[in-house]
C-alpha cells in the first residue's frame, strides 16, 4: 500500500512538473496556397497539420466550385506524416479553387475541412 502510494505520488509529481501537452484532434495549421489567399500560380498544394496523420486515409480534393468541376490531383502524405502534398500535372489556370480535406489521426478520429484560394 505505502509503496504504491509513493509510486503514485512520484507519477503525479512527474506529471505536474512538466508543462501539459494537452491533446487535440487533428487540425489544419497552415497551407500553401494559404486559405483565402490570391496567388500568381500554383502547381503544388501543401496542407500542414498539427500532428501525424494516417497516410492511407488522409487526402484532399480540389475543385472549381464556380464551374462545378473537380480537378484531378494526386496526393501523398509527407515522410514526417504531418503534411498532405498534392501535385498537379500542370500549373493551375486563373480562377477560384476549393480544397476539401480529410485527415485521419492516430487517435482514431477523422477530421474534415475546406478552404478556398484564388489564382489570378
Amino acid at each position, binding site marked *: 500500500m505505502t509503496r504504491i502510494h509513493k509510486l503514485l505520488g512520484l507519477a503525479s509529481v512527474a506529471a505536474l512538473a512538466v508543462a501539459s501537452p494537452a491533446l487535440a484532434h487533428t487540425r489544419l495549421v497552415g497551407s500553401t496556397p494559404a486559405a483565402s489567399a490570391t496567388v500568381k500560380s500554383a502547381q503544388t498544394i501543401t496542407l500542414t497539420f498539427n500532428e501525424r496523420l494516417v497516410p492511407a486515409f488522409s487526402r484532399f480534393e480540389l475543385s472549381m466550385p464556380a464551374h462545378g468541376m473537380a480537378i484531378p490531383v494526386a496526393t501523398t502524405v509527407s515522410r514526417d506524416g504531418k503534411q498532405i502534398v498534392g501535385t498537379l500535372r500542370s500549373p493551375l489556370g486563373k480562377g477560384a479553387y476549393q480544397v476539401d480535406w480529410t485527415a*485521419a489521426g492516430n487517435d482514431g478520429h477523422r477530421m474534415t475541412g475546406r478552404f478556398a484560394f484564388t489564382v489570378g
Partner: protein
Amino acid sequence: MLESTIVAVRLLQYAGATIGFGTALFLFYAVPRGSAAEAALAESARRWLAAGAALLALASLALVAAQASLFAGSFSAGLTGEAIGAVIGSMALGKAALVRAALAGLALAALLALPSRRPAWLAAACCSGLATASLAWLGHAGAAEGPLHRLHLAADALHVLAAAAWIGALAGLLLLARADCGDPRRATLHHALRQFSGIGSLLVVLLVATGLINAWLVVGPAQALTGWTTPYGRVLAAKLALFAAMLVLAARNRWRLTPALAARPDTAAAALRRSVALEAGAGLAVLALVAWLGTLEPPAGCC
C-alpha cells in the same frame, strides 16, 4: 452512424474486459479455495467468464473494422482488405486491437480447456488483464507523442484495469448474492465482501490518481475551469457524478449493509443485492459514457 458504431463497439469491449478480467480476478481472490461455494459456482462462473472473454475478442476485431469504415467514409469502403490492412499496419490502435483479441482468445481457451476452476480463473484473469491494459492504446494515450507518452499509457492502462476490477467485482458479487438462502454461494457472500473491501479502497485510490493524471494530460489545467461547457466537459462531468454515486453506494454497502449481513442474513441480503446491482448499473453507465467520451474532442482543442 459510423460514430455510433464505434461507441457501441468500444462499450462492448469495456463490458467484455470487465467480466473477463474483473470478475475472474474477483472470483480468484474472494471465493475461498476448495470451498463448497467454489464448486457451486464452477459452471455459472465458467459461462460468464467465457462470455466476457469471447465478447472482448469479438469486439476488438469489430473495432478494427469499424475504425476502417469510419476512416474510409462508409462501411462498404471500410470493409475491404486494403482499409483494414491500413488500420492494422499503420496505427497503434489497430495493432493493439489484434493483440487484445488474441489475448482474450487465450483466456477463452484457458476457461474451456483447464479442468480445475482456480487455475482457469487465474489464467483468464491474467490473459484478459493484459488485454484490458491494451485498451490504453485505444484513445488519446495511444496517439500521443513525446516524453510523457509512456506515463500517459501507464496511467491509462492502470485506470482501465482498476475500473474493470471494481465493476467486475460487482458482477461477481451479484453471482454470489443471487443464489437462494442456504446455498453455499450465498453463505460465502459475507466473506467475499470482506475480501473485496480492502481491494476496493485501493482501486478507488488508483482510479482517482490515474484519472487526475489522464485529465491533466488530455485536457490540461488551463481548461479546468472553462472546459465544462464543451460537450466533452459535460460528458466527463456526468461520468464523475456517476463515479461519486458509486462511491456513496460502495460506502453504504461496506459500512452499513455488510455488517448487517452478518447480524441479519435474511433481510440484509436482499438490500445488499439491490444496492450492488444499482452500483453495477452505475458502473455500466460510466463505461457507456467513457465509450462516448472517446469520440469527443477534449476542450484543449478549441483554443
